[in-house]
Structure formats: structure tokens, C-alpha cells
């Protein structure tokens, strides 16, 4: 028995849901950031699965671009986290409820 497309889609849905739950449950900014990375990876799995089962290379190109966006997001996001920590001495999202520094 070989894995069907639906298996991969189900796995992707499960990972995405875990990521959403993490973003809602966690209060640490870095943990929320990692949950967002998990959601991006779940979407990547969907792309690669469709690309492989429909024999179309476009899906993998999109994965490549999503990874680039994730890398850019990581650099800017971690810069924001460092700025928040420097100004508030805390990584709790409840402490950073105002945009003003």
C-alpha cells in the first residue's frame, strides 16, 4: 500500500492546526514565531505533494519562494523581537500590546 495524496494533505492539515494552536496558546514571542514557521512548513508539504502527484514542477518553485519569504521573515521578525526586548525587557506578548516604543 503506497501513500495516497490524501495522506499527505491530512498530515499537512494536522501540522497546520498544531501551528495555529501554538500561536494562540503561546505567550512568548519566539515560541509564536516558531509556530508560524511550522504553519509555513505545513503549506510547503501541500505544495510538494501536489507537485509530485500532478507531475508539475510549479509547486516546488512555489516552495522555493515560500522558503525565501520565510528566511526574510525570520531576519526581520527576530530583529523586531530584539527591539521589543531591548525596550521592554520582556518577551511576553501581553507586555507588548502597544505599538509605541
Amino acid at each position, binding site marked *: 500500500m503506497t501513500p495516497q495524496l490524501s495522506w499527505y494533505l491530512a498530515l499537512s492539515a494536522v501540522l497546520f492546526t498544531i501551528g495555529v494552536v501554538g500561536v494562540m496558546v503561546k505567550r512568548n514571542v519566539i515560541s509564536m514565531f516558531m509556530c508560524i514557521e511550522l504553519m509555513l512548513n505545513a503549506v510547503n508539504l501541500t505544495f510538494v505533494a501536489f507537485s509530485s*502527484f500532478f*507531475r508539475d514542477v510549479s509547486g516546488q518553485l512555489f516552495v*522555493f519562494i515560500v522558503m525565501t519569504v520565510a528566511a526574510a*521573515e525570520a531576519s526581520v521578525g527576530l530583529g523586531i523581537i530584539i527591539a521589543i526586548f531591548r525596550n521592554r525587557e520582556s518577551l511576553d506578548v501581553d507586555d507588548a500590546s502597544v505599538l509605541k516604543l
Partner: protein
Amino acid sequence: MVAILFILFAGLAIGCAISMVAQRNPLYSAISLIGVFIGLACLYVMLAAPFIAAVQVIVYAGAIMVLVVFVIMLLNVEEEERRPLRLRALMPIAVVLAAILFAEAAFIIFFVHASPGTPTTNVSDIGLTSSIGAGLFTSYLLPFEITSLLLLMAIVGAITLARRGGLLPQDAGVVPGDQVFPQELLDRRQVGDLSPVATHSSEEAERLLGVKRTSPNKSG
């Protein structure tokens, strides 16, 4: 056989993901997330996408997670303390909504059969580096260029955000003599604290403010 491998790697990914959410120490969360990335890379290999699998390990598990771990070490993050749940009243509604979502997913899985065949058993060339490069530089050239622009913007943004800049510009100078300036200038965290800090020589003011004098010839 392939199904056993799928279950193994999918179990690794899901287990590490649940562990990531359950951990209270962000460093353990980061290590669990690396486990998820490794499991997904193995699944990409099973899906005949070796290039994406390699990039997954190099970029995600290598670059991005090293950056995250570096920031965790730099900021010396402590564990989250347990706090009472907010919005406890919304819990039944959440359970009902989750049940509806699960029912929809189950309906699609059990009653919709439109999935194509399984081409992963025979060799295909769509996942190879050459075909990805060809696609990237022909039909997807514009997204590729936009991606490079995005990376440039991310570099500039990250440097701007992480720069430790005071309220004074870099070329600000001090004049010789007694100086009185608000506390706010020395430390951005004390915004609103306008109590004066007195200095009695230009050298002292220079040292506190971290700027150079306007006229280096004069001895203060």
C-alpha cells in the same frame, strides 16, 4: 513498505510538533521544531523532490533555526510561567467549532475520491535541480526577481531594526562647557524621564552621549 516509512516520518513530524507546542522552554521548542523539519525533509525525498529536501535541511534546519537559537541564547529567555486561562467561557464554542471542522474534513476524506494515481513509485525528473532551475529562470523569472528584491528589503529592515541607535543622530556634537541634558538622551528605555544629567566637561558629555565634538581643535 513505503507506507511504513510514511507513517514513521509523519509520526516524527507530528510528535515533534506537539512537543514544540507543549514545551515551556523556548530552546526545547526550537530543537523539537528542527525534528519537524527533518521529518518533512524525509517526506520530500519520498515525494521525489530531493532538491527541496536539501534546501529544507540547509535553509530551515540550518540557517533559520540557528538564527532562532542564537536569539534565544542572546536574550536569555526564561521559561514561561503557568498562568490561568483567559476566556474560559469560549471553551465550549471552540469545542463545537472544532467538531464541525473535523466533520467537514472527514466528509472530504471518506466521500470525495478524486485523487490521482501514485506516481512516486516510478522515476520522474520534476524534482531534480535542473528542472527546478529551468522553471525558475524561464516561466517564473519575475517572481524570482521579486524574491531577490524582498531579500534586499529584509537585509535593510533587519539592520535598521537591530541597530542600537540613541535619539541623537550619528553626527551630533557637543560644545565645550557645562552640559545639562535629559536622561532620555542616554537611555531610550527611560522615555519620559526628563530629569537632567549634569556634566562638567565636554569629555564627560562626549563619553555619556557617545558622540564626537564639533570642533576637535579646541581643548575642553
